[in-house]
């Protein structure tokens, strides 16, 4: 498995560079940070936009149909500082993605780790200072 982000992450940690593990934009209270879902589907759009990137994934519902999920990521600036580019995910990619779903049950969430079909792992969100397994949910790190 290839981990694209790790070397960059290490460099960032060593230099202490980058702006921090958080969204610049808002509290994450709208997402259920205690719940992590893994979705598998096909990318229909990757909005490389401010104040947040948005990843749109068509997810088979297991009954012959599919549902479109809208997933919020960090701002491009934060993602660039964690090794992403606007070409990291492309329309048509088959991916699996870990998300914290919206509390209100709509088909949306905040996305974290993305795994591409070739095994490439893209780490989003709480990249610098990713809490170790068993640590409290990262919501506290994603406040402002």
């Amino acid at each position, binding site marked *: 498995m290839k981990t694209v982000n790790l070397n960059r992450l290490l460099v960032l940690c060593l230099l202490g560079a980058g702006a921090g593990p958080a969204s610049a934009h808002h509290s994450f209270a709208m997402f259920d940070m205690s719940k992590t879902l893994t979705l598998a589907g096909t990318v229909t759009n990757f909005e490389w936009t401010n*104040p947040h990137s948005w990843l749109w994934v068509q997810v088979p519902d297991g009954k012959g149909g599919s549902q479109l999920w809208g997933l919020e990521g960090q701002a491009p600036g934060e993602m660039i500082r964690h090794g992403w580019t606007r070409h990291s995910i492309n329309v048509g990619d088959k991916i699996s993605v870990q998300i914290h779903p919206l509390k209100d049950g709509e088909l949306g969430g905040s996305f974290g780790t993305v795994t591409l079909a070739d095994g490439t792992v893209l780490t989003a969100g709480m990249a610098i200072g990713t809490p170790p397994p068993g640590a409290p949910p990262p919501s*506290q790190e994603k406040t402002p």
Partner: protein
Amino acid sequence: MNRTKIGLFSLAFGSAALVLHPNGGVAADAHADKAAANSSLTRWWESLKGLPDWSGAWGLDDQSFRKTVSDSTGRDPNDPPLTPAYAALRAGNGAANNGQGPPGGVETNSVNCIPDGMPGIMTAPFAFEFILSPGRLTILPENNEVRRIYTDGRPHPDDPDPTYEGNSIGHWEGQTLVVDTIGMLPQAELFVGLHVTEHTHVVERIFRRDAQTMQIDTTVTDPAIFTSPWHYTRTYKRADAGMIEYVCEQNNRDRNGKVNLAPPP
């Protein structure tokens, strides 16, 4: 070449001018020298001599940003030293940040693409530029807020119109710029979830700690918010990717705490 052209030449290059002497010889023209020394262009550059190099893009480092989060969520109930009223406000905010708050989340300025304002903007996770020009420091956070800090000796206005960034004046103490800010709007953020008042007073000491670090030591005073002046130190590291455009209105799907899930066209 006539004297006017030579004078402009010497002005442009800021060096002693050699001109053809009227009697045919070559001599330093004292008048041209004086004109150059007094020109506004020369004074402009001279006034920057000896100031520190703050060029580049600087982002709050991870450790400092964690303090921003801690301030906002109240992990340390004694930091900042809040009055009971503001401690209660923060407690509600902190609960929300731990995922137990209102569904829409904490109402913040930025979720509606409103500036953070002072002093909150300086501890937000953006990169910053510190642009020194004669009589002025301009701080440019990546989210397009602008701080204009006048270092030309002017005082604060007697009754400044409140603004998000407030009214800032500064003076140099060696290589440290001491910045005094008043006159913020009550809508400006102290940090996410808490706002300043019209009486909040901010003093910052901005300096280059080492080749890779800018440091700002800040004191915020406001008897309504704090039981004693709040002192904090934050450090900023070189943001290697430089400044990256952040236009909040581009695709804000989070306005008013309600996520807009209309698919993109």
